[in-house]
């Protein structure tokens, strides 16, 4: 069942429901066999974008190209796209086998072929013993597998997944996460994946499209999003715990940084990831003095919750052996390369450091 993936290109995609503009023009591209994730907070328009690509809803503007062909006006059933829905959308009155083979039956695939395909996919997804059950008799993880099997059996070159793991518990989630990734790589299917979970997006994707309020905030590889957040929103959304953003007043900057920033230095926001901060601050380019308000022990690291001079709170992820004590006044520091500078006014990254 080796199927080769399709390429997908979305240009200036817009969608309005009545007067409210839900998507204000988004662009992204995927190579055949790629894994692209639409990431963003709930309500930012991820599902809407996916439904436009699938053809279930009509676009208000922009175009969708699959393998270079404009399919913007092509009906959903002729786009050759598979979709895994958020709550699986299994037909409750059909058995697992009937659910999986439904599409083949609708498209009048001959019965022997249908049964062979069903058998192959059932084995691939280890669903063999469950084929005669109804969806209600399956656990969440098993239902998820059936939903995946239903998409795989049709050998679609492009598969869309809308938060497929959000109803599963943490352990199953990591398990199926790697299964989906493996299917993407071994079968060569192009996957567009939707999630609001940044760690899921970072761990699975080739490309992440970070969305915010109906527009694209940043497009890049997971590493680019983590290392070089383009905006304050990006910086705050990626990473657990997210990046700290401090005002200039709370930080002592290396010489020349403030001066080289053309505008009022008070407009600067200094970003630093909790895991890039050092304590003690010895030899760091940037430093901030603060007070420890609480300590969260997390096994390999401890999260120190800190309060700056001006009362802003931030977090340091501490991996050293020596833990400072509560309420202690300390100085933390970080290097030039760990510092991210943003403009408070525009929310954009400025003065790319290093």
């Amino acid at each position, binding site marked *: 069942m080796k199927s080769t993936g399709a390429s997908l290109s979305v240009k200036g995609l817009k969608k309005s429901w009545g007067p409210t503009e839900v998507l204000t023009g988004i662009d992204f591209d995927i190579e055949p066999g790629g894994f692209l994730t639409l990431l963003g907070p709930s309500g930012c328009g991820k599902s809407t974008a996916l439904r436009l690509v*699938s053809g*279930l809803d009509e676009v208000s503007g922009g175009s969708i190209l699959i393998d270079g062909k404009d399919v913007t006006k092509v009906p*959903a*059933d002729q786009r050759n*796209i*598979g*979709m895994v*829905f*958020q*709550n699986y*959308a299994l*037909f*409750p*009155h059909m058995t697992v086998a009937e659910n999986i083979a*439904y*599409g083949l039956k*609708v*498209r009048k695939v001959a019965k022997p072929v249908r049964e062979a395909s069903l058998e192959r996919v059932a084995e691939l997804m280890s669903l063999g013993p469950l084929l005669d059950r*109804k969806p*209600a008799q399956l656990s969440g993880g098993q239902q998820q597998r059936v939903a995946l099997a*239903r998409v795989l059996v*049709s050998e679609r070159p492009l598969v869309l997944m809308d938060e497929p793991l959000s109803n599963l518990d943490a352990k199953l989630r990591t398990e199926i996460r790697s299964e989906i990734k493996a299917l993407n790589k071994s079968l060569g299917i192009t996957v567009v994946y939707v999630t609001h979970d940044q760690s899921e997006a970072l761990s699975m994707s080739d490309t992440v499209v970070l969305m915010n309020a109906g527009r694209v905030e940043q497009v890049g590889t997971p590493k680019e999003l983590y290392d070089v957040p383009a905006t304050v929103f990006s910086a705050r959304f990626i990473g657990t715990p997210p990046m700290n953003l401090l005002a200039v007043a709370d930080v002592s900057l290396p010489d020349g940084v403030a001066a080289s920033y053309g505008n009022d230095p008070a407009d600067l926001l200094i970003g630093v990831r909790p895991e890039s901060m050092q304590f003690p601050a010895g030899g760091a380019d940037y430093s901030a003095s603060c007070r420890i308000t609480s300590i969260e022990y997390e096994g390999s690291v401890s999260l120190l919750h800190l309060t700056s001079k001006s009362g802003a709170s931030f977090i340091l992820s501490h991996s050293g052996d020596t833990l400072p004590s509560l309420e202690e006044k300390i100085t933390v520091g970080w290097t030039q390369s760990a510092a991210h500078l943003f403009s408070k006014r525009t929310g954009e990254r400025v003065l790319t450091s290093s």
Partner: protein
Amino acid sequence: MNNRLSIRLAVIMLVIPCSLLVAFTHYPAIQALINSFWNNSSSRRPSRFSGIENYQALMEDDRLAQILINSTIYALGTIPLAIGLSIGMALLVNSRLPGTTLMRLSFFMPTMLPMIAVANIWLFFYAPGIGLASQILEVFGMPSINFLGRTDTALASMMFVAVWKEAGLFMIFYLAALQSVPTNLKDAAKLEGASALRVFWDVVMPLLRPTTIFVAVNALINAFRLVDHVIVMTEGGPNNSSALLLYYIYEVTFRQRDFAYGATLTVLMVGLLGLLAIVQYWVLNRKAHYQ
């Protein structure tokens, strides 16, 4: 805190509904059963126990045989018609067409009208020559038909009246069921290449099945329960062709004043309905649920 009812209050609250049930349901039913084993009293002699004489009469009643056939045709005809019409109306009202609120109201209107009023409306509709039905036939160049006056059309005419009256209510149930069908199930089927008709048959209809069974049960009950239109429009005629079981009971008991035979027919009807109820419960329990 003590939330338990005092014994006295509990007894009172049990006795009131129970006595209502006994007075208006159980006692008359048992009385009918007893009456069916006695013959009629007259001014000259009192009622006397007659064993199964009434039931023997029932077995030999040719008119009853005809009426049972009528009732069966009537029930079997109105159920699918009511289901089909109410699903059709629900789909129409649930669509994105303009004016669905007005449609909803007009489809539901017949349900709110009393059966007698409905019967009057349809008397005009069926009136030979001047009625709307005749005028429609005329448009197509066909001769006017006296729908209520012919043995081959009277029963069917009654069926249409009943379906017209009850379909509006059933539409409401189907509308609620349609709106609870998850959109993503329809979307999933659509993406698999199913046409709108196919989506309806493969996905929507099976999910409407509990509603369909509910509607079928109610249509069946109505088929035995509603006879006002027969009384007003045809009085069971011509030649018994539109007479139904309940109408026959009414006629025997209150026109012919044959209380003993009326009671016997009532026992027959209660027995039939009980049997149907058992069958329906069995079907409902087996077929209505997926979860």
